């Protein structure tokens, strides 16, 4: 489903990703953890080409793109790959001039040229799925953070992407609203949605992940099933990071 090979990305002189290799099978959940500045967001943004990697290759659902220093990526290939992914941002980025339903319909109507009737039907179904039936006509500013993030999840799913990408989906939320968003993500995992999730919620990570990736300084320190990473990692940096997290709780 997802195949990342030797991905590198620098911002000017700053090397942020230094050779990332990943693969994820259909229907599985990959959770990325790691200290601040380790490159988690950058990696996620590379997966839907909001950042164009310098070198390496990326394949999602049969769509492959190779990156080479100095060579651009054709806009068409970029959009084709983006259609295979849906992105959920830390601070939602809902379209404020559209209602919840219009936000969800936007991808199907504008990008996929589906009829408004069909898109509205799909939009209502997805809003129902994330627990927001009845909120179709609310504007984003009329919704709580947790509700906005759930609209954003429905919006990301509306174009039927093969993978959903989440960048710290609960970090901008008040603590009492975190649960409702995590619940939706857990439900998607149970339904077999393929997902890549960056999070600082360790208990959630351990529960939902099929594969856990620990990043530090632009490289993957450790990856495997969560039990293995959490309980048996011998790597000193891993122990150090996990201990620090433990200390915070």
């Amino acid at each position, binding site marked *: 489903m997802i195949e990342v090979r030797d991905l590198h990305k620098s911002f000017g002189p700053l090397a942020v990703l230094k050779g990332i290799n990943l693969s994820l099978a259909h229907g599985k959940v990959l959770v990325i953890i790691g200290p601040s500045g380790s490159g988690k967001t950058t990696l996620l943004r590379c997966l839907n080409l*909001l950042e164009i990697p310098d070198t390496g290759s990326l394949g999602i659902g049969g769509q492959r793109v190779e990156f080479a220093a100095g060579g651009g990526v054709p806009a068409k290939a970029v959009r084709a790959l983006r259609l295979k992914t849906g*992105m959920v941002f830390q601070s939602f*980025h809902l379209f404020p001039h559209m209602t919840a339903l219009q936000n969800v319909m*936007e991808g199907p109507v*504008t*990008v*996929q040229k589906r009829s408004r009737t069909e898109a509205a039907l799909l939009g209502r179904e997805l809003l129902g799925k994330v627990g927001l039936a009845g909120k179709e006509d609310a504007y984003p*500013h009329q919704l709580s953070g947790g509700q906005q993030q759930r609209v954003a999840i429905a919006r990301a799913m509306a*174009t039927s992407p093969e993978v959903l990408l989440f960048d710290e989906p609960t970090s901008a939320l008040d603590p009492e609203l975190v649960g409702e968003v995590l619940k939706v993500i857990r439900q998607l995992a149970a339904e077999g949605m393929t997902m890549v999730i960056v999070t600082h919620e360790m208990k959630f990570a351990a529960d939902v992940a099929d594969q856990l990736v620990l990043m530090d300084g632009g490289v993957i320190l450790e990856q495997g099933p969560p039990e293995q990473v959490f309980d048996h990692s011998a790597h000193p940096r891993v122990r150090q990071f996990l201990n620090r997290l433990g200390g915070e709780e």
Partner: protein
Amino acid sequence: MMDERKLQILQDSLLPLLQAGLAYTLPLALLSFVLGLLLAVATALVRISSWYIPQQIARFYVWVIRGTPLLVQLFIIFYGLPAAGVVLDPFIAALIGFTLSVGAYSSEIVRAAILSIPKGQWEAAYSLGMTRSQALRRIVLPQAARVSVPPLSNSFISLIKDTSLAAGITYVEMFRTAQQITAVTYEPLLLYSEAAAVYLLFCSVLSVLQHLLERRFDRYSAA
């Protein structure tokens, strides 16, 4: 102080002034505003694009129009161009002058409004698979329009007043009508004050409309 003759003049000239305002001043302002806005959006889009040559042309246009007096521009178009073989009707000359002026000033407003839309909105649009032009049309421009309503309304109100400059190129709008009546009544203070009052009336009505328009847009933005 106010004798009967003066009152009569005031009364007699009110209708011609209002007529000139409604039939000549407002249409000139409205038409040049609409055309000017189209030009402004096009100019703003070129300026935020990565097209080098058109970008330089757009910058040059804005620089020249903003750096020279509007009255002088109108004189060049109406009195100057005939020397180059281009003879224009006063209305057309005024329309061109005001359109160019609105286009240049408003392009800065539109450009600033587009740049004020958070980067996350572009990224959310791109992440759905939109092209740049789809993201602009569906996501960024509608939000930029909301941001530009107050400054653009102010430009329109200024434009209503600026159309009086067209009197200088023989276009018979409200101010020139006042001048013509003054020429026969010899009452400049009276006539020009009356014309000023009608301008004030027009601008006040527009301010109310501006307020209503902003309220309509407020539907989706908190406070």
